[in-house]
């Protein structure tokens, strides 16, 4: 496209393809004064970046500040920090509103969905990437096509299916009075997603075939190859699927709101609705709950960051 227009760039591309040639060449230096200019520019850049990062953080800092206030303090005049620091918001969230239970439920649901996704997506991803079978491309496009089906369209059909059809099917298998309008249903309808499968497939495609060939020559069957060769190498992809799936399930509101009937099974996003009443919103416990809700996903992200980016990289984003 426009790369042909500028000779320097074409040369750069050449170098990129050839790889090592330009690596040793140092950047232009030695020009007097340039280093100090660079340092000032770098300093300004850092200030700007910290400023933007602060902007990104400010809403959360504000929520944290609010979480330590009393309710009266939130309707009184504006102040950056609480007038009287108090833990009442947190106490209310846990005692009056059973936040501990909601957190546990969120963990169970998000954990189960993540593990299931890892299992099914890696199986499917490996097959679509490495195994040849008739209709492979068509089936893969079908999987991708599911991304175009809005959740809201599936709402009524899935609800009716979970309530009527599926219990009657499993009754034939001997499981009577089964109910899926609960935590099991929420997990069951999110066992695997097209996004996870896509990520795993793309990553498997980038693994060099030699390793598989070697395993085959050693007499390994397909499943053994999958288990002993492909999976161990798929670390970044596993990290990516883990973070994205856990985060989505942890924060998911839609299916949980419809399917969870028993208060003891509510998850955090539903629990947040508990603090909104018709004539009042209890901001301090709501903000306390919101702050606590972010912590697990934040920790997960911080731990897996580097692998996460590498995993996403192989999803076709890098071509």
């Amino acid at each position, binding site marked *: 496209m*426009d790369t042909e227009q500028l000779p320097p760039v074409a040369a750069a591309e050449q170098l990129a393809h050839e790889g090592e040639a330009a690596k040793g060449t140092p950047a232009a230096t030695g020009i007097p004064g340039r280093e100090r200019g660079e340092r000032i520019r770098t300093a300004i850049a850092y200030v700007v970046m910290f400023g933007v990062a602060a902007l990104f953080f400010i809403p959360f800092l504000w929520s944290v500040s609010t979480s330590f206030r009393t309710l009266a303090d939130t309707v009184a005049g504006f102040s950056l920090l609480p007038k009287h620091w108090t833990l009442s918001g947190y106490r209310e969230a846990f005692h009056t509103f059973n936040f501990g239970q909601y957190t546990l439920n969120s963990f169970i649901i998000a954990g189960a969905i993540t593990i299931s996704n890892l299992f099914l997506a890696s199986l499917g991803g490996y*097959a679509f990437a490495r195994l040849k079978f008739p209709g492979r491309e068509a089936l893969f496009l079908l999987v991708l096509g599911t991304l175009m*089906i809005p959740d809201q369209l599936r709402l009524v059909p899935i609800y009716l299916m979970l309530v009527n059809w599926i219990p009657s099917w499993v009754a034939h298998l001997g499981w009577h009075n089964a109910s899926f309008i609960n935590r099991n249903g929420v997990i069951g309808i999110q066992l695997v997603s097209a996004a996870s499968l896509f990520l795993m497939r793309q990553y498997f495609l980038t693994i060099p075939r030699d390793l598989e060939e070697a395993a085959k020559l050693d007499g390994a069957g397909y499943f053994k190859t999958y288990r002993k060769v492909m999976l161990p190498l798929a670390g970044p992809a596993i990290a990516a699927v883990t973070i994205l799936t856990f985060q989505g399930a942890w924060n998911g509101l839609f299916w949980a709101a419809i399917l969870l009937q028993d208060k003891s099974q509510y998850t955090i996003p539903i629990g947040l609705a508990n603090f909104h009443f018709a004539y009042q919103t209890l901001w301090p416990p709501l903000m306390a709950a919101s702050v606590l809700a972010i912590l697990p996903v934040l920790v997960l992200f911080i731990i897996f960051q580097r692998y996460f980016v590498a995993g996403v990289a192989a999803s076709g984003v890098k071509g």
Partner: protein
Amino acid sequence: MAVAVAKRRQTRGLGNERVREALVGYGFIALPMAFFLLFFIVPVGYAVYISRYDWQIFKGPYVGFGNYRHLWHDSVFWTHAVRNTLVFTAFVVPLEVALGLALAVVVNQGIRFRGFFRAAFYFPSLAASAAIASIAIYILASDGLFNTVLNHLGYHHNNAWFTQESTALPSIIGLNAWTTSGTIMIFYLAGLQAIPTDVYEAAAIDGAGAWRTFWKVTFPLLKPAHFFVLVTSVIGALQMFDQAFLIGGASGGPNYSTMTMVLYLYNQSIKNISFGYGAAIGVVLFLFLFTVTLIQRLLFGKPEVA
């Protein structure tokens, strides 16, 4: 030794080997495909079925394409839901992509505290939409933090951003761009990491400044990332539900200003107690998304097949 083994494999019969591989292949994908069939394909079929009836809570009389005919004449759908969805997508996609790209480029520099900045910029994407919506309503209230800061800067704005018809949708656009930019940043970071550093050094040797390097070197080399980001963000934007629902409510905010197509689907199904009509809207929306994706693939090639 290996050669002998390979030769023996060859003489055993390629046909058997292929059949075996195909069977194993089907075995591997059996569970995931069964799942997609049961919870995606079948519901769409069921929804099409429901849309052919006057189905309120329970199945009513058969109306054929009656629901679709009604939808064709539904002015609220076309002048509000469709329009808002298209406006939303047209603004939020460039905004979040530009923001995500800028953040990725910044984080990708050999800077210190890289992990910190990456986490900081990804932070909004991590939070639950329920929490973000509550926080946003609180901050953008008429006497909230945002207006207070604006007042100090000399710009007096006394209205709540989400409840005023003219600012409701733009505020949601801004909010959504902010929360999605982190994910876009991750995608672009991945794409940037694939560009070898030699390219930059070569450009520096040739005297290209930072800006020129970005536009003439980095940007074009990110083409695969662009495709991926564009496709996913457009599809996501066209289906935005959570924030519109939590902030504007199921009725679509002040004078329908935050009513999107998926919210209208929900509204008609639940608030107007009409599962059949809602299903018709859903089918139309699905066909619309399908068409949009098809157009994108035709325009930009096939981004997902490596």
